[in-house]
């Protein structure tokens, strides 16, 4: 079973953190192991997933989108309908309950697009926990609506002005806070990245997406899909929907990274497609870096994909060939965004708009019997300003 007891998926993962955090990670690992084996923990998680997060989210057959593409049937897993507007709530809820169980009342988190920050702020408000969110200044500017939402929910949002002022730097700052307050603070990391035990723990909380998808597609079509497509930044929504299908070898798994302004421009966020193996934020994985091992600045129109690293399990799935990874540009993602708006009346977040574009691309070459499931990981309200500006439309 992966990861192994040192947190490795094959060659990827591990615990590359300052000594101060090693005993804290041990404490977290055993607390999670206990919780994982405790049926009452999952009963609480399931109950709140239903009553608070609004699960299960629907699996929707996008008929007009499918018709437009002229091939396979495209289903959308509607994580955009989950509470706070994205799949991020699944992990925030799971880890929030774990923090409460561990008696840690001060929660810190990083956020890129703001979706993980909002989900964490919501769960902390609901559980009565203190909440501090680190967010890059650049991201605070481009996702100001989410900053306001977090503040309304009682979170303190701390701007991060170092480095590229985006998600990577927000994680650095959250880790620095954690190193400073290791005893009373719970770091609620938002993706399947970071040191062990985060990648498998976040995956476990997110795999509810794939479990539901499997039941729903069996109920509707009485068979498994041919393709599952999801966008990949850190990779939590992708691993969440992939994981329950890993042993179903006929189901092709495709992760879509951000090609930004184009892979050949260097301004992108596609470590699996265009990076090489390195160590970032506590784990060995594919990383965007220069020839001397400095982490590169990234670019994507979507803040949630704007990250130079990726979860170690994705690196493993890439190397074993179980999943394939491709990249879609800013422009193409905008096309995907418009396409879903016009054919289905659904505005996706710019992150899954990458996956929508790729699904639409391949659907035309498939026949009508084939099934594609796209993880529609979040809704697009937060991105309206960016889209308006990028398309040059007057609202």
């Amino acid at each position: 079973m992966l990861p192994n007891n040192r947190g490795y998926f094959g060659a990827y993962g591990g615990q590359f953190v300052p000594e101060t955090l090693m005993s804290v990670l041990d404490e977290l690992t055993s607390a999670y192991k206990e919780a994982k084996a405790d049926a009452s923990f999952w009963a609480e998680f399931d109950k709140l997933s239903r009553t608070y997060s609004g699960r299960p989210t629907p699996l929707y057959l996008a008929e007009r989108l499918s018709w437009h593409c002229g091939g396979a049937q495209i289903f959308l897993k509607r994580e955009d309908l989950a509470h706070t507007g994205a799949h991020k709530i699944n992990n925030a809820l799971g880890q929030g309950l774990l923090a409460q169980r561990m008696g840690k009342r001060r929660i810190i988190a990083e956020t890129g697009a703001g979706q993980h920050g909002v989900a964490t702020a919501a769960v902390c408000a609901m559980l009565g926990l203190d909440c501090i969110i680190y967010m890059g200044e650049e991201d605070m500017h481009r996702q100001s609506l989410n900053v306001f939402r977090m503040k309304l929910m009682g979170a303190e949002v701390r701007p991060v002005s170092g480095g590229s002022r985006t998600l990577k730097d927000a994680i650095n700052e959250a880790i620095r806070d954690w190193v400073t307050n290791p005893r009373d603070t719970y770091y609620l990391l938002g993706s399947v990245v970071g040191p062990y035990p985060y990648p498998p723990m976040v995956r476990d909380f997110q795999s509810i997406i794939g479990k539901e998808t499997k039941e729903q597609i069996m109920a509707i079509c009485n068979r498994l899909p041919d393709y599952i497509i999801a966008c990949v930044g850190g990779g939590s929504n992708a691993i969440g929907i992939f994981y329950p299908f890993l042993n179903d070898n006929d189901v092709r798994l495709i992760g879509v990274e951000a090609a930004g302004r184009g892979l050949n421009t260097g301004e992108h966020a596609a470590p699996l497609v265009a990076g090489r193996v390195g160590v970032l934020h506590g784990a060995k994985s594919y990383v965007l870096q220069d020839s001397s091992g400095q982490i590169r600045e990234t670019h994507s129109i979507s803040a949630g994909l704007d990250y130079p690293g990726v979860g170690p399990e994705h690196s493993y799935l890439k190397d074993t060939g179980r999943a394939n990874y491709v990249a879609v540009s800013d422009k193409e993602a905008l096309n995907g965004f418009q396409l879903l708006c016009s054919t289905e009346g659904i505005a996706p977040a710019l992150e899954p708009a990458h996956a929508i574009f790729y699904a639409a691309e391949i659907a035309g070459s498939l026949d009508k019997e084939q099934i594609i499931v796209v993880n529609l990981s979040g809704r697009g309200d937060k991105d309206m300003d960016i889209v308006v500006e990028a398309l040059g439309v007057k609202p």
Partner: protein
Amino acid sequence: MSRIASVFKQPAHKALIPYITVGYPSVGATLRVVPLLASSGCDIIELGIPFSDPLADGATIQKASFYALQNEVTPKLCLKVARQLSQKVDIPLVFMTYFNPVFSYGLNEFCNACTKSGIDGLIIPDLPPEEGSGLEAVTQKQSLDLIYLLAPTSTEERVRLVAEKSGGFIYLVSLTGVTGARDKLSSGLGAFVARVRKVAPQPLCVGFGISTSEQAKWVAQRADGVIVGSRIIQLMEADDTFTAVGNFAKELRCALDELPNGEKL
């Protein structure tokens, strides 16, 4: 015995270990300040190879690293600087950097180049012993000391693990937090040093947050060496001739030498 280990064999001598970021504010500055520090009573110099994401560092070293990277300071350039410095000064030099630049260089290639450049040891704050076996195998071959860290949160089991693996000395992180000058030392520091002393045969050097000669003296009464980083970098910013940083090093040396012979509390 390694050159680092022999520093601690001088009777009743406490090691003074400054840290500087290579290439901050310029490569020329590094080449001038290291000999000055060596002649002002320092025993080992930590040379920081800048990294883009220094998550164990506070504002001062973050800024120095960022600035050095803007000046295109690469690991290759740091090796070249170390080579020149090792011909100028007689005291041990250690590199302090994060794991990715080393991993990216290639463990064998990097350690080989370190030895050729007169480097005596490595300190890598994001490489705990659990992840260090690959690098250990290479540093042992190259006679480099791989110096591990311990922190106030380290359990007894971890203290034993580091005592088993650390080369040269053990780097005790004085507080739970990042690097940077602090007004006060952590209240549990004395007990922490004593706790490690019971288990570890290596010399113990304390760093993070030490910024005055009073603090250095207090630490030296309990440990075998004192590491000062952020304060040194701040003083380097004060004047081009490095008068302030030279005087500070001498002041620290005096504070450490004032201790009665062999005093250990």
